[in-house]
């Protein structure tokens, strides 16, 4: 698998670390306990498209939002997670 890092270009899987679902939002400080449990523990395990966080750990260090198909491993988009980093190479 290769991931197109927006800063470094196509790089092999070995350079990246995986975190998981990128669609989660950290709850507000006063959110109920259930919201925190969902945020930390509950994950969907979709077959197909998945938006997820990867870090180019052995490269530029960027956290990326990667749209990956969990069946085919096709990657349709990889952008920097930080705002302003959406420019796709």
């Amino acid at each position, binding site marked *: *698998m*290769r991931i197109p890092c927006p800063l470094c270009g196509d790089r092999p899987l070995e350079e990246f670390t995986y975190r998981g679902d990128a669609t989660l939002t*950290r709850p507000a*400080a006063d*959110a109920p*306990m259930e919201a925190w*449990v969902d945020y930390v523990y509950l994950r969907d395990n979709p077959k197909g498209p998945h938006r997820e*966080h990867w*870090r180019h750990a052995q490269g530029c260090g960027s956290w990326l939002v990667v749209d990956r198909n969990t069946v085919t491993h096709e990657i349709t988009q990889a952008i920097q*997670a930080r705002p302003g980093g959406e420019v796709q190479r």
Partner: protein
Amino acid sequence: MTRQTHRLNGTGRRLDRSKPISFTFDGKRYGGFEGDTLASALLANGVRLVARSFKYHRPRGIFTCDPHEPSALVQLRSGARQEPNIPATMVELYDGLEAASQNRWPSLRYDLLSVNQLFSPFFAAGFYYKTFKWPAKFWTGLYEPVIRRAAGMGRLSGSIDPDTYEKIHHHCDILVIGGGAAGISAARAAAQSGARVTLIEEHARLGGFDGTGLEQDIAELEALVNVRIMPRTMVFGWYDNNTFGAVEQVSDHLPVPAAHQPRQRIWKIVAPQVILATGAHERSLIFGNNDRPGVMLASAAERYLRDYGVRPGSRAVIFTTNDTTAGLAKALGAAGVTVAAVADARNGDEIETVHGRTAVTGVTLRQRDGSRRTVDCDAVCVSGGWNPAVQLLAQRGQKPRWSDGLQAFLPQEMAGAEFLCTGSLAGLEDREDCQAHGRMAGEVAAQRFAAPDSADLASYHSYLEANEARAASFAYFETSAGKSKKFIDLQNDVTAGDVSLATREGYRSVEHVKRYTTLGMATDQGKTSNIHGIAAMSKALDKPMDQVGTTGFRPPYRPVSLGALAGRSRGKHWRPILRTPLHGWVEDKGGVFIESGLWHRSQYFPKPGETMSQAISREVQAVRSAVGFCDVSTLGKIDLQGPDAAAFLDRVYSNGFAKLPVGKSRYGLMLREDGIVMDDGTVSRLAEDHYFITTTSAESESVISHLEYCHQVLWPELDVAFADAGEDWAGTALAGPRAREVLARIAPELDVSNAALPFLAARECTILDGVPARLFRISFSGELAYEIYVPSPYGRPLAEALEREGADFGITPYGVEALDVLRIEKGHVSSELNKFTTAADLGLGMMMSKKKDFIGRALSSRPGLTDPDREVVVGLKPLDPSHSFRQGAHITARGAPLAPENDDGYITSSAWSPTLESHIAIALVRRGQERLGEVVEIIDPLHGEDPVPATIVSHHFYDPENARVRS
């Protein structure tokens, strides 16, 4: 040396007869020629029996001319280069080659374990599952040793492999896998566009099954500068993004690798377009005793005749279902071999059974009318048709499609966005078809490489469709009668009876039958045999072939040696070593190193005649009574800057940092979002918007990654920037009552008084005549102490200066063992941060700020993490100070029976304390802080040790008032 009784004059296009070669098999000397394989040379010498089978120890010969040879597996070479389970068909002969048969005892001809044949009912399908279930003790005591001995294949030398292996990356525009007629044409056509083409071929030479007449094409291809040809290279895996794994046998055809050459090389190849021209494997037929030495695939017999000048015998019988054996009959005749009979299944003729034990002596033929006749012969050449080599496609998840016309499993898709199929893989049989379609594939690949989606594949597809529509292959797999054993899988000794038994016992899925019978699970992966297992299931279950289907295929296509996969990552190169800037100095001082993660850290500094524990105690006592220093360069270091740096720290640490003044350090605790402690360290404020952070050595990488996540993903609005400064700074801890006096000497410009540089002071300063330094009055040991950081190149000069300037005060270098004893005496947590503990568990509950949100705050208030019954940090002292206990030992109330429900916790750190003159420990004990003073039992049944009574005490064994660090 024996005479090459089966060598022909005239044929043998691979041989250089001017170069005779001598080799040994089972210690006996034979002759061959350059160009021979071990298999062809053995056949030339009339050697029939070359192996014993895996399960029944049946005599076996050479069955194929291919890498997936199921029978003739041999052990090669001797000494440290000894290598088992090598197909004789793949071994290129060299002078002096040593080979030996396997799986026989005491000799190949008189193999005593062939009595296994008499017990064959015992070895039927599923015998492992049925026989060895119970009693359990019989397994380790009886079954396993016997089976290991009986089923052992070859043996490894047990010595270190003296050869090297390496890995290399390769990028090309178009990859062609398979150097037969189709692959050659495809590569030529693709290369005409100017694209960079790489052609990979498993064998030593291009040409495929029959290279006759392709010499000119090959020469022209080799002359092209944009074509790279890689012979002796096998593509074993096809991975995401058209990435391929291949192994090149660089030196296996040589006695020893040439200077500076590896034995094998792993290639990681990336190509936007791939053309699969992987060919087809001839399949056998299923008849009685079809495994006897002398039974051989027809294509193999033809290749031995044509390429190696070897005749398979004097009288041959051909058993076939197709026209590809027509050439063989002619070639046999031309070589003077009598074709005693041709049993063509299409005419209703078949071989019922083979006669002979260690070699074929004849066959019983069963004719269309049911009559039988016996024919004397010494060779049986068999062809059951061809299996397209779909394995690589199947690795990508393609389920092969059964073609009734071709009577074979074909690729489900003949083309995808990044791949094309051609040649016999695509069901083509004639060379002209392979060449014509190979050209089309090459042209399409070149167009696609130039402009994706531009190519028109209409004629590419219609060519294959027309070919399949024309095909009318004959459906035939197994002889209809006879009582002898009929082998499907020669390498794993799986018979037609085993498959039928499995279906009678209720197995319906091809995957289950495979595992139950071990069909196709040997190193050849059933390339000649799987189809017959599927056919047998199809017959037994009365289901069409495509509904039975094939099993899945995973990499590797063929076995890959572990040496090649390891590459250079062996010995001291198996993982990187991290050395601190003080490493060389520690070496010079005779320090002992200990591996800690990737780091080599100084463990202790023994004096002559000192034991390890003596040295550690001396180092501890020096720090407690005078002064010592220790390399702490392995700590993670992060430089954090920006106007929002304080706000950022407040969110990632559980305790507050906004009010930390400039010039001060503070201990910090970092939680995971689930409320468990992640790491601890110190944060020092060097300027209003500038902080220097240390992390533990073990967690430095994960803390950086975590902070980057917090910054880039969670709170990008915070204006901070940070850099991993771990390698920039060398660090030493200077500790002991006389540390201030040493510091004064190395930092003469600095006011080191307690008033000017109090506990937790942080300074940027210069030491040693102008070396920039960061100085923090932080103590891990419990003594007056400083952490001194200098740019890495100054690490060694700093150590030398400390040693020199501290000599008057009795300065002593200490290692991580003494460091650990000091912190256990002091009661600082370290190994207690074990990813199970909360701040409260560690006695650090007061570090959980109530005034702000921070990572881990919300979930740390969960009932499970605030349960008063939790195990919390305490100290332990044995009643008898000489009683020791180990990390991991458990704690029970006195008199409580040994039972899991009475487990009250465990020891996380333990040491001999020279200061307290007692063994001591830090432990996590249930409700421990409520139990101070209670005597408990320390139990360690794992090490068979007697319970040790110990008192629960505060873990702050030493200077609980914290007076010394402030002195």
